[in-house]
């Protein structure tokens, strides 16, 4: 991570690592994040494919048409509830943008507020997911119940884990900001964390549509 934020122009030896001197014009960290997110697309792609395959299969599996079908889909999903928590998560992307923009405008106090708001919105989403999971388990749809439930909990659980990691990143940056380690010159670090956060939100849009809305 030989990245320099304020590379002195006198250091000619260093300009190959200097900020804004990369061949692509994109900083190393940001390019790395984009590549990582590209890789993540395939991860969620695999999980979503598995879910779609098993939802279809369960419906057609002999003996399961009636007995288990009642435990999935429209009967169990509380679509209004999940819609609200989805809305909460999407709003967290807005607050994230506001946090980055505040830091770029050198308003660190406001940046911290928006950062905290983003983390809180994310945490509300996670709380909703925990509530939903417990409700399903109480209704008898556990992780090991059938192929649909395994695929459902794995897909949404992986997404939830991504949100949790995002919250940890945001809180770490919040703490760093309090220590004075996240000044305006580091706005790009926050922006990169934001990229990750937005990605996780976008993935949820896809997951929400695939899991809850498509019949």
């Amino acid at each position, binding site marked *: *991570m*030989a*990245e*320099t*934020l*304020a590379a002195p122009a006198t*250091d*000619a*030896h*260093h300009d*190959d*690592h200097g900020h804004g001197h*990369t*061949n*692509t014009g*994109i900083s*190393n*960290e940001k*390019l*790395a*994040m984009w*590549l*990582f997110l*590209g*890789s*993540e697309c*395939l*991860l969620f*792609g*695999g999980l979503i494919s*598995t879910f779609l*395959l098993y939802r279809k*299969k*369960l419906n057609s*599996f002999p003996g*399961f048409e009636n007995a288990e079908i009642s435990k999935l889909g429209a009967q169990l999903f509380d679509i209004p509830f999940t819609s609200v928590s989805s809305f909460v998560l999407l709003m967290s992307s807005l607050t994230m943008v506001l946090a980055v923009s505040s830091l770029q405008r050198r308003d660190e106090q406001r940046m911290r507020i928006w950062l905290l708001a983003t983390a809180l919105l994310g945490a509300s989403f996670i709380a909703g997911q925990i509530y939903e999971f417990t409700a399903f388990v109480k209704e008898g749809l556990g*992780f*090991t119940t*059938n*192929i649909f439930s*395994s*695929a459902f909990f*794995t897909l949404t659980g*992986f997404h939830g*884990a*991504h949100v949790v*990691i*995002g919250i*940890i*990143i945001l809180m*770490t*940056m919040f703490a*760093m900001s309090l*220590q*004075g*380690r*996240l000044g305006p010159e*580091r706005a790009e*670090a926050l922006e990169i964390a934001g990229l*990750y956060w937005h990605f996780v939100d976008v993935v949820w849009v896809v997951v929400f549509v695939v899991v809850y809305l498509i019949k």
Partner: protein
Amino acid sequence: MAIVEREPLALTTGEPSNGSLEPLGVLARPSTKTGWRSWVSTVDHKKIGIMYGVTALFFFFVAGFEATLIRLQLAQPNGTVLSADLYNQVFTMHGVTMVFLVIMPMAAAFANYLLPLQVGARDVAFPRLNALSFWLFLFGGVFLNTSWVIGGGGPDCGWFCYAPNSGVVFSPTAGVDYYTLGLLITGVASSIGAINLIVTVLNLRAPGMSLFRMPVFTWMQLVVQMLLLFSLPVITVALFLLTFDRLFGANFFNVAQGADPLLWQHLFWIFGHPEVYILILPSFGIVSEVIPVFSRKPIYGYPFMVFSGIAIGFMGWGVWAHHMFASGIGPISVAAFSLATMFIAVPTGVKILNWMATMWGGRIRFTTAMLFAVGLVAMFTIGGLSGVTHSVAPADTQQTDTYYIVAHFHYVLFGGALLGLFSGMYFWWPKAFGHFLDEKLGKAHFWLMIIGFNLTFGPMHILGLQGMSRRIQTYQATDGLTFWNRVATFGVFVIGAGMLLFLYNIGASYRSWKAAGRPNPGADPCDSRSLEWSIPSPTPEHNFDTIPTVHAADDFWHRKYGEDEHGRAVRIAATEDVVQKGDATGVHLPSPSYYPLVLAAGLPFIGYGLIFNLLLVIPGALLVLWGVYGWAYEPSTEPDDHHGDHGTAAAAHEEETSVG
């Protein structure tokens, strides 16, 4: 010497520097340059490359020993060397080790060592992440192999580990758990490495080094890292699903519940076929460097070499189901994947012809490196041709799970990938270690390898067509398979002799070099073409005194040679005049760090915890957290580089990578 400063200088702008803040954690940023500490804390891409190579070579002997056991078992009908159960474990670990712990990391060794040098950079984009990749690979590999000792036996499901055969019902020992968790750990290593190397190649090229001036090796590695980046998450999904099934009772591969047994096969081979090109393309890159140098001609058809590599990278995604022709995937799928499989032979054929055209009319010097490179061209052609026969689906249905398949993929992986890697070792050895490997011993090594290899795997074509099945621990005397099996077993000992000779060569070459007073081979002993030869051997820690400005493909060669009035190449400058001197004045290097090691050390604990006792996860998770936050808060030693804090975002992302 590079300047190592403990304290950051004050910023010229007068802003307070953060570097004076106390570091979090107890590990000070190390500054040693010698001894074992300098290795475990290094972030130097060259040292990391060498460690990759040494570890891969060690695992090569482990996997080679397993191969020898297999061949001893099959040397005669009703062999009794291994039980059926142990045989399953041994061939599984042989395959897994060779693919994930030998060829991939050995290619990573070359990538790490050479990519920054070939594009003209001081180091990779993220030196600490680079160290993390290595330690994760090492710990993942060791974790996998500890299944022999504390797992109740190795995994016994084959390297492809088809579910539901790999489920708890059919494989009740912890072996398969070691497989899934071990490959997840090494997968994280490869993903991080891929991101790191792609950013290095795209972002850190020297001035003038446009993409189409990059050496072919760099190009092939770029394609490989792209393939890794996008294929590893797919097997990550498969490995997670299998882990959840085995450890937490999920139903992904529970056929009694209606699970689809083809799910694993699709996920595995969507990764698995790009993986084939991940294994072979680095060697294609290596011989594309070696053959021009020892033919004294530029590579023939450089754009074709590059674009055929890119084409392989894309088409590699569209052929996975040819591994599944016998799985009942339907006539349309079979037809489509047959066609795609035929087409992918085209760019590979382009490469073969271009290598031959490069040699055509050249002043060929048959050094050991060149012999191995030519060996690759010849042997890979055989393996490639038998591969094309698999696109004929009716024939493939007959060959599936026979020794014909074993023969085919050993011709491409041993005859292709490994011969290429050995070629690279002989070629770049002086660049890495400052002395040549002995040529006489090297040539003996080459001939033993090529003869032993053909004795071992050539007969397997015949055995396969006679109907001998893979993964069956024995056969009957009446099957008529005994003779060729004996030949194959004899061959494996010839290979073994060759490999021991190689080890001896490493030691003997070093000793005779030391006895001769460590003569320096010079920066450019082979009259080579790419930038790594424009700096002293062994490579100084800071790589380039000044970053070169590149004006053409094979820029270094053009500094040595120009054209006379007839258009013929003539020497225009002595090598000593165009190479750099190794003067590091004013160069700042990234400081070493212990945190990659700390972070990586946490993951095996989590692995053992998931298998044996969840309490073990706690120390593992604590180590990971310590690693991540220690990393993020690590004080910098560079005056203009206060990324003690700057690492946060990236470090936090790594935490994310290591989980997801």
